[in-house]
C-alpha cells in the first residue's frame, strides 16, 4: 500500500473532486442478450456487469422454498480487476460475505412470494475495481433485476461515504479507500429511503455517522435517476430509432 499520500489538498481530492462529489456514473440496461435481465455500469474507474436469471426452476432442490422464490447472489471480482498482481479467480471470503449482504438487500424489495419454489439468480462480476464496488454492484444489480421483469417494490441505490484526512467525503475511490480512516457503504430503497445495506469500518463519531447518512441519501437521489433513465432508455432508444426511420432521417 505504501506511504499515505495527502488525500485532500485545498478542499480538492486526488481525482479533482470536492468532498461531496460523485464520480461519473453511466449505466446501460440490457447489455447482455442471453440473460433475462442485465446491466453494465461504469462508475469512475469501476466497471461492473450484473445479470439476472429467473424466476427459474430451483436447482439444487434443497435451496427451494415452498412459499417464495429463493433469491441467490454471487458477487465476484475478476482476477484482472485491480491495478495490482493477477489475482485468483473465483469467490474469496470477502466476496462471499458481500454476496450475502447484497442478497439480503434484494430479498427486501423482490416480491418473492409471487414465485414459490423458484430461484432468482443475481450475478455481479466486477471487471475493474476502483473502490466502492459493492455499492456499484448493488446499483447495477438493481437495474438488472428490473430489466429482467422481476416484480419488486423498489429500486435500490447505493453509495459509500468515507472519512479521509479527517473529512467526510462521498464515493471514495481506491486510494481514498486504502488510506482513509473510515468507510461506510449504504444502500437505500428509493421511495422511502429505508436502509437496506449498512456496513462500516474505521472510527466515526455519532455526529459524523449522521452526516454520512445525509450525504449518502442526497447522492442516492441522483443515482436513482441514472438507474431510471437506463431502464427507460432500453425502450425509448428503440422508439427513437424507429421514429427516426419513419421521418426519413
Amino acid at each position, binding site marked *: 500500500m505504501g506511504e499515505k499520500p495527502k488525500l485532500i489538498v485545498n478542499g480538492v481530492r486526488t481525482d479533482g473532486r470536492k468532498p461531496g462529489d460523485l464520480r461519473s456514473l453511466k449505466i446501460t440496461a440490457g447489455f447482455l442478450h442471453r440473460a433475462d435481465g442485465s446491466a453494465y455500469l461504469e462508475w469512475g474507474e469501476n466497471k461492473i456487469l450484473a445479470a439476472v436469471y429467473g424466476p427459474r426452476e430451483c436447482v439444487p432442490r434443497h435451496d427451494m422454498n415452498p412459499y417464495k422464490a429463493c433469491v441467490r447472489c454471487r458477487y465476484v471480482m475478476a482476477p484482472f480487476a485491480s491495478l495490482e498482481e493477477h489475482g485468483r479467480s473465483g469467490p474469496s471470503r470477502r466476496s462471499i460475505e458481500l454476496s450475502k449482504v447484497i442478497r439480503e438487500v434484494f430479498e427486501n424489495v423482490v416480491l418473492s412470494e409471487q414465485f414459490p419454489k423458484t430461484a432468482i439468480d443475481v450475478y455481479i462480476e466486477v471487471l475493474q475495481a476502483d473502490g466502492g464496488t459493492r455499492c456499484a454492484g448493488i446499483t447495477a444489480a438493481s437495474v438488472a433485476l*428490473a430489466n429482467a421483469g422481476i416484480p419488486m*417494490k423498489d429500486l435500490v441505490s447505493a453509495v459509500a461515504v468515507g472519512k479521509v484526512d479527517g473529512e467526510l467525503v462521498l464515493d471514495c475511490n481506491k486510494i481514498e479507500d486504502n488510506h482513509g480512516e473510515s468507510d461506510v457503504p449504504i444502500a437505500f*430503497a428509493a421511495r422511502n429511503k429505508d436502509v437496506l445495506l449498512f456496513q462500516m469500518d474505521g472510527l466515526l463519531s455519532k455526529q459524523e455517522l449522521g452526516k454520512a447518512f445525509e450525504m449518502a441519501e442526497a447522492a442516492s437521489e441522483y443515482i436513482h435517476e441514472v438507474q431510471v433513465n437506463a431502464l427507460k432508455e432500453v425502450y425509448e432508444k428503440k422508439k427513437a430509432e424507429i421514429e427516426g426511420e419513419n421521418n426519413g432521417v
Partner: protein
Amino acid sequence: MKIVVPGESVGDAKNIPSTYVEGGKARATVVGLFDEQEGRLVSLQGTYNPRFDDVIIGVVEEVKFAGYTVDVNCAYKGFMSSRDCRKPLRLGDVIAAKVSSVDEVKNVNLIEAFVLFGGHIIDITPTKVPRLIGKKNSMIGMIVEATKSEIRVGKNGRVWIRGGDTSLAARAVFKIEAEAHVSGLTDRVQAFLKKEMANGSVAGIAELSERNDVEGARQ
C-alpha cells in the same frame, strides 16, 4: 402512456395488476407501460407466469404412470394427465395445450393436448404475445399469409413455426418482440415482410453457391 419503473407512483387506484399499494399510494412493481387514462399497467419484461385458460406450447419432458411432465417455458412444470389424453404422448413431443388449473403452490395442470409435428420452436418475451397475435389475430395472420408458414403462438412466449419461409417468419416474430412498445407496429411489420420477400431470392442464390463450394470440397 408512459414508461414506469419499480417503485414509481402510479396514482392511488387499487387492484391494478403489477402494482402494490403502500400508504394509500399505488406503485409499479415492474418496468412497464402505464396507461394513465385507463389505469392499466402492462409489463414490458418478465418470464411466463401460468394462468387458468392460457393456451401454451410445451414439450413433453417426462412420461410417468399417471401422465406427463411438460416443460412450459417457465419455472413451473405443467402436468398432463393420461386420462385427459386421447392418444398417448411421447417423450419430446411438442404440444399445444390449455391450462386447466394453477393452485397456490403453482402446480400447473394441462388439458386438451394437441401434438405439433415437425417444425421449429422459438421463444419470445411472454409479455409481447398479445402484440404478436394482434387484434383478432391480425398480426399473426399477416405473417402467415406472407410466409405461408403454419404458426402457433403460446401464451408462454413459445412460438411454433412449420413450413413455408420459416426463417422469415421467425425474423418477423423477433421484430415484433423488439418493437412491440412502439406504435405503428402493423405497418412496419407489413413493410418488413414485403421488403424481405423481395430480397429473399437473391440471398438464396448466394447461399447455394457457397453450398456448392462445400460439396466441391468434399469430392
